[in-house]
Structure formats: structure tokens, C-alpha cells
């Protein structure tokens, strides 16, 4: 009986330690493993790298219209021509940095800030812009319209 009494606090003490250690280890390991497991799962938006982006879906644009999309940290302009082909350019006006837009009445690219006009090849044809707009490559992949920076020669 004395033996039982002597071992009682011993067992509770051991149980407490076991609980702390075991439970704690389990909890801490879970808090390490959980983020790692989530990390290993690839995110929904695939990283195509800084040089490419999906600008629009196939039937999103109507002929003779434009759309502003994000390319890296600057805006880009995607234009669908009347014949169904696409072109994409930088949408940052080379004059003072305003965002340009596609004018379907003029069939040219226009900057509302100081009436700068670019042709569809990005060349600055009228107004204050000093330089042409950068032109990007456009490919259709499946039902996605992918815009990428021009490969350096």
C-alpha cells in the first residue's frame, strides 16, 4: 500500500511531463509542418516569370477595342484589331507618365493628359510624347492571350 502511495505523485508527475513534452512537441511540429505542406502546394496563379503575363481571355475583347492590364508594376494596353489580331504595348505615356488609352474612333492610341497620339505600332506621331511606346509580343495560348516582353536579339 505504501508503495502505491509513493508511486502516485510519481505517476502524476510523469504524466504531466509526458503531456507537456508530447503535447507540446506535437503542437510545435504541427505549427512547423503545416506551413511547409501548404507551401509545397503550387498556388492557383502560376508564376510565368516577370516577362510574361496572361492579359485577357480569348473572347473578352471585341474587335477594335482595347484593355488595360497589369504587366509587372506598370500598365499595358492590349488592343484587338478589327481583323481579329492582337497587339500589346506599354500603356505609360512617354511624356509625363499618364496612362494612355485606345481610341476606336481614331484607331490610334491617345493620351488624355496633353493630347499625345501614337500609332498602332507605338510610334509617337503627334503631340508632346518624345519617344515611342514599347511594343510587346502577343501569343494566343489555348483560350489565353499571353503578352510577353520582346526577346533581346
Amino acid at each position: 500500500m505504501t508503495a502505491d502511495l509513493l508511486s502516485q505523485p510519481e505517476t502524476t508527475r510523469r504524466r504531466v511531463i509526458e503531456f507537456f513534452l508530447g503535447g507540446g512537441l506535437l503542437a510545435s511540429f504541427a505549427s512547423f509542418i503545416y506551413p511547409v505542406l501548404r507551401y509545397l502546394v503550387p498556388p492557383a496563379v502560376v508564376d510565368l516569370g516577370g516577362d510574361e503575363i496572361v492579359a485577357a481571355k480569348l473572347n473578352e475583347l471585341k474587335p477594335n477595342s482595347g484593355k488595360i492590364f497589369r504587366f509587372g508594376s506598370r500598365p499595358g494596353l492590349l488592343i484587338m484589331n478589327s481583323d481579329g489580331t492582337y497587339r500589346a504595348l506599354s500603356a505609360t505615356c512617354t511624356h509625363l507618365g499618364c496612362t494612355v488609352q485606345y481610341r476606336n474612333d481614331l484607331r490610334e492610341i491617345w493620351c488624355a493628359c496633353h493630347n499625345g497620339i501614337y500609332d498602332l505600332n507605338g510610334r509617337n506621331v503627334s503631340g508632346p510624347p518624345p519617344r515611342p511606346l514599347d511594343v510587346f509580343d502577343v501569343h494566343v495560348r489555348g483560350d489565353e492571350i499571353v503578352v510577353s516582353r520582346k526577346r533581346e536579339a
Partner: protein
Amino acid sequence: MFAALLHWLDERFDWDDLTAPLRHKTVPSHRLSYWYFLGGITLFLFVIQVLTGILLLLYYRPGANEAFESVQYIMTRVRFGWLVRSIHSWSANLMIFTAFAHMFSVLFLKAYRKPRELTWVTGVILLFLVMGFGFSGYLLPWNTLAFFATKVGTEITGQVPVVGKPMMIFLRGGEEVTGATLTRFFGFHVAVLPGLVTVLLLLHVLLVQRLGMSVPPKLEVQWTANPSAKREMRFLPNFLLRELMAWYVALGVLGALAAVFPWNLGVKADPFVSAPAGIKPEWYFLFMFQTLKLIPSKVWFIDGEVLGVLAFGLVGLLWILLPFFESDQPSHMKRWITGLSVFALAYVLGMSVYGYLAK
């Protein structure tokens, strides 16, 4: 069940014999025993680096036009990417700190004395390799600060007479810092340096196990005279359990740092922009950088910066060979080295603070 596993291993690998040294290993127990933790913590942080580094490798792309965006992707789109990256960056800095602290504690406790000279030599080389890890890894996100820090750092390497220029071209992968530099640094960071460090680390740890833990000189004299005064702790499980506590604390600190102070992304590097004013290297290079800034541009007939670089090179070499300058007999040499150690610590600390505060 644990015992059954051990029995299984023993039947095939002579496990008991293999692990005998570890089971018999003791750690001296004295006032300064806490310093013994530093080596283990550095090793632990290195393991963290390898694990988080491998995780980062799953998403990181080396290459001037992709690196920054891939790190941005990790920080924003990948689930817990911010955590993995921030832990990697914080643990890197912490590891360099503990490596330095470990080196200085060994220096002051005089653990480099015979027969532990090679442990010291491998250790100092490991310290240099770890700083190389820091330098190469810092460039990988390809942001403005890293770009210019690399430019300045490799420029300084180029100052060494005769071999400096070829060394600089080797490091940069060309005359200037470009995407080629990034690719090269990536190769150093994930292949070359890990390989070298693994080999040296194995050697270092093996030597520590073979030679046992060193005891400060005064204590050693006491304990040799009076063996009953010796206090020791078994490595398994007592010291190891304490080390595990230290490692868990380190984990907590890392997690807190990563969550409360996530590592900055910066701005993508643009080689054609001029360097931001007051560009400084990472803190662990500050003491050298500040020294170079203080040396006058011409000393006698030698260019000041060249003199500084050569001086540091010489000090580095002598540092590796430090144990061989002290042998058992002449005691004035020992005092010399103690004085030098104090000076070195004060210099590194002082110059780092100065460099941090200077414009």
C-alpha cells in the same frame, strides 16, 4: 519499440559500437559552460538554412529578368512563402552572428590550444565560407541594394594587386555585375559553398567528438591537481536536452522575427540607375567597410584601399594560423594573444557600430 529499432540497427551496423563515443561523451560543467551551446546553435541554424533554402529552390528562378519577380511571387502568392523566405533571411543573419560569437568564445576560452588546432583552422575557414554564403545569397533577390552592395564588394576584391582583377572577373562572371553574376552567385550559394561547408563541417564536428570538450586553462590546472573537483554532465541525454531547449528558443525567435519583421523585397535592380547615396554592405561586413573608408587614400606610396584589403587578407591568414603561435611554454605569447583577442572583439564591435551610424 525504440529498443527494438536500436537492436535492429545494431545487428546490421554495429550500432552500439558506433554510438558508444556519443554515449560516453561528457560535457564539463562550470561557470562558463553556457558558451558551449553556441556551436550547436550555429549548426542548428545551418540545418534551418538548408531546409528553407531547398523550399525556396522550388520557386526561385535565377536570372536577371526573373529573380526579383520570383521572390515577389514567393512573398505574395505562395502559401507561407513569406514565412519561408523571412526565416531564411533572418536565420542567415542569426547564424553569422552565432558563428562569430562561437569563434570569439572559443578564442577567449582558449579552446584552440593543442591538440585542437585543426578544429580551430576548420572553424575559421567555415566562418569565412559562412560569410561567403551571406554575400552570395544577398544578391539573389536582385534588388537595388543587393546589386550595388555586390558591385562595391567585388570592386574592393579587385583592388588586390596582381590577382585582384582576375578574382573580380571570376566572381562577377565578367567585367561588370550583370545577370551572369547572379547565375554564378546562385551556383556558389546552392552548390559550391554547401559542398565545401558540408565537408569541413563533418571534419569539424568529428574532431570535436574525437577530442572532447575543452576546458578553460585555469580550470584545467585546478582539475588536474584535484580530480574530485571535476564536474561533468553526460552529453546523452542531459546536455542534448538542454541544447534542444536552446534550439527551440531559437525557433521561437526566428518565427517571431519572420512574422513581425518580414524581410523586405526592395526595388528591382536597374544597372543603369546610379547607386543610392550612402550605400552600405550588410552588417557583418561593416567593420571591414568602415575600416577601408577611414584609411587615407594614400599611405606612403601605397594606395590606401589596396593597403586595407591586403591588411585584412593578412589578418585573415594569421587568424587561421592563430593556434600555432601559442605553444605550451612561453607565457608572454599567451598574454599577447589574450590582449589581441580583446582588441579584435572591441575592434569588430566598435567598427560595426561606427559603420552603422556613419552617413
